[in-house]
């Protein structure tokens, strides 16, 4: 029927591997924005190959978002699209200065998140861990902590798209080392504020979230089991 068809069209598809990694900030964003979505998670290359074929999109990549006929790749673009779709342009920043600051923070976080990925896939991660924290992670955490002083969210009073990426970075770092944020109270406070957002809290209590590994099981760094 028409009503059913409209409801189905209102459900977007977010597709990625069955891990947190780059898709998790987007999953949290979908939850926060109350956008109904199919959380499509591939466990094998074969699953993705089959889906790729059915998708019939010229340059498919993961993660992708499908909304009706539209297919969109690139995590940042998906985040933008969802903010526009939900009519939440405040998430970019409520002033020009906030938008510039958010863009700056996103640059820093994108580098940080990439370094985390490299660490997780480093065959020598166990022996390199102290050095990686000392040379790469802690300097950034310190600067982010200073930047976060006196703020409710990372940009200020208003939640921003970059808060979703920041939370994922802090969450992952703390899973690597439970003490990782001990020296950074402002970041702990921001993470806690984010976790207490009702939609985020509900999502974190879901089986879907709890059963999802942070990275692939094959990665050299072994996270505690979900």
């Amino acid at each position, binding site marked *: 029927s028409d009503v059913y068809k409209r409801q189905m069209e209102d459900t977007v598809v977010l597709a990625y591997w069955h891990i947190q990694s780059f898709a998790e900030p987007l999953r949290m964003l979908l939850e926060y924005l109350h956008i109904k979505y199919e959380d499509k998670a591939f466990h094998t290359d074969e699953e993705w190959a089959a889906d790729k074929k059915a998708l019939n999109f*010229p*340059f498919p990549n993961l993660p992708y978002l499908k909304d009706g006929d539209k297919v*969109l*790749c*690139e*995590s*940042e*673009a998906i985040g*933008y*699209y969802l903010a*526009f779709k939900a009519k939440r342009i405040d998430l970019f920043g409520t002033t*020009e200065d906030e*938008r*510039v*600051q958010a*863009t*700056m923070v*996103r*640059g*820093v976080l994108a580098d940080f998140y990439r370094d985390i990925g490299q660490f997780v896939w480093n065959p020598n991660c166990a022996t390199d861990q102290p050095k990686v924290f000392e040379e790469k992670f802690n300097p950034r955490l310190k*600067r982010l902590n*200073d*930047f976060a002083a006196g703020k409710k969210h990372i940009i200020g009073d208003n939640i921003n798209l970059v808060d979703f990426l920041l939370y994922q970075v802090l969450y992952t770092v703390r899973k690597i080392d439970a003490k990782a944020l001990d020296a950074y109270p402002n970041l702990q406070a921001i993470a806690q504020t984010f976790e207490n957002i009702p939609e985020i809290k509900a999502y974190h209590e879901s089986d879907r979230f709890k059963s999802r590994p942070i990275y692939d099981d094959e990665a050299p760094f072994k996270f505690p089991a979900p």
Partner: protein
Amino acid sequence: MAEASITLGYWGIQGLAEPIVKLLEYLGLKYQVKAYTSPEEWAADKATLNTPFPNLPYLKVGDKTLTESEAIAYFLVFHANRTDLFGANNDERVQATAVRGVVSDVTRDFVAFIMDASKHAEQDKYFEEKIHPRLARLNAFAAGKKHIIGDNLNLVDFALFHALYILGKMDSKVLDNYPNLQNIINNFNAIPQINAYHASDAFKNKPLLPPTAAYKFRD
């Protein structure tokens, strides 16, 4: 309104800051360049820079200092009142963000390649596996367009042009199969401010890579 003085700090090369320089030129903004010629020189300034995430490039505007290339570009767009450069509508803004993701990835990738001398012997294989698939994707996206997003120039044109420029220096045939990208390059070059800047000594005398890069451009 008095124009605040603008200083761009970087390594005295094109490197990763060149899209910002082209943007400054395009916007017709007066600016100075602080070119660091040694890590020690930069380390000394870095310690005193009043900005939360000190790094190069930085932009000093009046008494404020900003880092992260994209944030600098956003700032300049607001400063020059050219928010059309983000995109003419929400769809263009989203598309531009997607293109920027692809351009950032490919740029990071070939910069890592350039800085790793052990890989240089495998350049043809590297281009086949890593560069051409992305160029094919961008070429398809560019079909029928004047600039990469469409009729209107976008911030992402600046990063795209520079990435294609460096790839062209690495392999003069790299765009042979991508006529849409060649068209985009020509249209970008034809912008009067860009054209004038490319003809200037400031551009022509600026090395592309740092002196520490062991990469030998094929000529």
